[in-house]
């Protein structure tokens, strides 16, 4: 059984934010607009956050792109009263938008602040509708959403593999953000398959995970020469 995971090389990432926009495009994330931005209600499943240390002129910084960590022990799924978010057999933490009651308990339980709530009815102007990705549902008002590791791509890839009666290969399934990263900082694959690059990279001496001490066992690894 696969255990999907991601490795993000912070030494490579140059903070270009292509992953953020690629994720928007792929996953039909609605534009919040200036009002939402000023109210801290912008939805972005992928967020390139900047960590800055030191004082001018001895200052250094790095960009830390943060999708959902797809924790192996996700604190978010446990608290959901209606099982609208759950971890599947391959380790992807999914959302069922049609079931979510919008209590936002999962969002509070997530220690990484990567869950987003649809405070308003998501706005997709009529002229932009033809540009929506038909593989991903458009969320209604009042539900929580977050990075899904582009699991719709997995479904498609698996379907393809089945039609072609062959096993799923590493190159069959990757996420939109990994696909879009111009520096190749994001690598996606099966952490349990030693032939996949992520498996190797996740054991790199530079590898660490966010808030490791919490025991959430994130499946997003970071690589950095700095600590």
């Amino acid at each position, binding site marked *: 059984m696969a255990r999907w995971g991601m490795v993000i090389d912070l030494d490579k990432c*140059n903070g270009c934010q292509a992953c953020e926009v690629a994720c928007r495009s792929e996953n039909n994330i609605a*534009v*919040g607009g200036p009002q939402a931005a000023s109210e801290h209600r912008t939805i972005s499943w992928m967020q390139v956050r900047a960590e800055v240390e030191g004082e001018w002129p001895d200052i250094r*910084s790095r960009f830390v792109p943060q999708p959902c960590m797809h924790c192996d022990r996700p604190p978010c799924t446990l608290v959901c009263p209606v099982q609208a978010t759950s971890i599947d057999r391959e380790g992807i933490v999914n959302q069922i938008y*049609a079931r979510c009651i919008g209590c936002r308990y999962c969002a509070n339980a997530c220690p990484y602040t990567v869950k987003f709530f649809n405070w308003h009815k998501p706005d997709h*102007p009529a002229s932009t509708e*033809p540009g929506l990705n*038909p593989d991903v549902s458009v969320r209604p008002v009042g539900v929580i959403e977050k990075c899904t590791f582009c699991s719709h791509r997995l479904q498609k890839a698996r379907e393809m593999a089945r039609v072609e009666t062959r096993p799923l290969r590493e190159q069959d399934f990757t996420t939109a953000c990994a696909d879009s990263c111009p520096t190749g900082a994001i690598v996606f694959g099966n952490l349990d398959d030693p032939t996949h690059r992520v498996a190797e990279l996740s054991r790199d001496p530079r590898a660490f995970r966010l808030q490791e001490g919490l025991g959430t066992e994130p499946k997003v690894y970071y690589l950095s020469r700095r600590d």
Partner: protein
Amino acid sequence: MAITRRSFLVGAAGAGIGFGLGALSHQFPLASPHVGPDWAPNDETFVASTCLLCPAHCGIRVRLIDGRPVRIDGNPLHPVSQGGLCPKGRAGLQLLYHPSRLKGPLVRVGPPGSDEFKPIGWNAALDRVASALSSASQPGGATPVEWMVGDVSGVCGDLVAGFCGVLGTTRVSVDDYRDGSADLLGMCQGIATAPAFDLAGADMVLSFGAALSEAWWSPLHAARARDAEVAGRSARWVQVDTRLSRTAVGAHQFVAIRPGTFGALALGLTYVIVKEGLYDADLVARQVAGWEDWTGADGTPHVGYRTLVLRHGRSDEVSARTGVPVATLTALAKQFGGARRGVAVWDQGVAWRSGGMADALAIHALNTLTGRLGRRGGLLVQGPMPGLPGPAEQKAPGAVDLASAPLTATSWPAAGSDPKVLFLYHANPVASLPDPDTARQALARVPLVVSFSPFFDESARCAHLILPDHTYLERWQDALAPAAVPSPVWGVVRPVVKPLVNTRATGDVILGLATRMGGSAAAWARWKSVEDLVHERGLSLAGAGRGSAFVDRFRQRELGEVEGRGWWLPHGQKPEEFWQTIVDSGGWFDPLIDYEDGASRSQLPDGRVWMFPAEARARLSKSGRALAEGFLPIDESLEARDGGPRDFPLQLIPFRVMTLASGGTPLMPWLLEHLGALNGSAWETWIEIGPETARSEGLQSGQRVRVESSRGRFEATVRVSPGAQPGVVSVPYGLHSRVEGWGEPNGANPLSAVGRAVDPVSGLPDWQSTRVRVVRI
């Protein structure tokens, strides 16, 4: 009391029912989307084309579902971008589907600025323009027609230039994204183009404020190159910058420097390199002029650059001036001198300021001195494109050369009489000029203003006719790689989708106008359409005897090696088939970089390379500034200007962010949601100040302020950032224009504080020397 217990209860019940009914009318969709019996799997296709949202011209691959574009990916076959795109490139879909796109040609019915337009047919509109052009044309004299052109490339630029030739006008202003480096190469090396930087082959890149990860000529070229292994070592990138920019964060080392002192730093680095003997004295003696003292053609003696370096480049002095510690300076110089394939890079950040040309000369001298010209990993000149047939070839005598037209934002409107007809192509002067009123007044004086904008932008509102262009995803065009890329690339821009609304490609409109005008104009316009023209160019490449349609990375390397040995394998295809391969793969390229070719080092008759050549010295001294010994790459006049440090205590440094294009980006809300990665700003113009400045000026993050200079002012939101240096206010350009209808950014135009300043030495905009104060509002 009339209310009884009963009536009270009845009332309460009634209120409850009313409340329930009200609640029922809420916004939740009741029916879930269902799949009908006529459902069929989607048809997924991919079409290769080229991004036109900035001059980098990356390769795109558009994903279509049942013929509708749903995602823009990078084209993995593109030799420069190699499948990568910047966020802007990915957001291009929002231009296509923007709710406020103009649905067809419009004609003004109300007074200028009144926003009252009504639809007009294409034929009627073109007739009107053609007759205006005919009546304006003056046999013999210059025709009073003017063009203002934003970022255009390939055939579209040529069509404008050719049409101007036909019309007999030279009044064109174009933004060609110049930073003065072509000028500089011309003076030093007799080469008429801007330099290319072989970043992918460099083991050390020393960037003087170049926005390599932001708005550089080709940020994707830079992104791909940074982590390259060069000769078994990973490359080292050093960013010298005035703020902790995105590029600085991504570099291996960040060297903080005071604004306006990068020339001094170059001088200081050269000093250490000379003292340590880290340059090839032999090579310099053979190939470089202007290093030792010399005598001009007219017999005047000149002090050589070497003498100046030794006199003014002492480490302690440079350190005091630049703020770079001596140890850092020395280490940097040793690294650069010792690097086998290092290169010093600069861009507008250096050039667009008073004293910028001297600074650029000093930086360029670093490359020259250490023998990096024409070398692997050094400073190159892009290999020549095969000659492409095109409409500009048939110029009327004395017609325009777009490459020498001045930059729009600073010099328009030109002095002299107003034109009778003004075309705005890809240009929005009302928003992009420092003062919108001047632009509006200038537009109001012209009897016929024609805008080709696909959007109802600020300038289109002042036009008489709007003939909306297709977006770049709906039209044919071609796009060359910017000069900064070492080898030539010809990208094909093709419609990935049929035009969504009743727009028309401006190139086709130009051809149509020429045909309508008859006579020599009609004869010039011998192509049916822009598509025809692009096709013709593509076919000509089949006969070029070099290069190839885009191929995958392994084949790219293979081809490069084959061509390097002097071979070229004909593709064994008929020209039409070759064309088809070009279109399918996205374009044509020639992988060969000829490091042996002396022509990329110097094209001067004596084959030498100059440091601070005579012409540069002459221009510098003509500018009238007090120049020690004719020139000095240090400008100390800033504080004195603008009334001194008391009135305007802070230095304004504008910068571009990757998420904003000059004008088009405010149309793309996906980008506005993520404007500033370093501080999370969105949908608004912000200023960055350091904690020290915040304290001294009494400012806090989130406050709204007015930034004032002696020339003007703009408003912004404060972001206190540890990556901003004391005494400096940095501000992103680019949120100056907007199209209503999809989120209203709270943007401002920093140029309104900068004004129209021009550096008299280089003729380039002087946008980095403004002194300001910040006032809370």
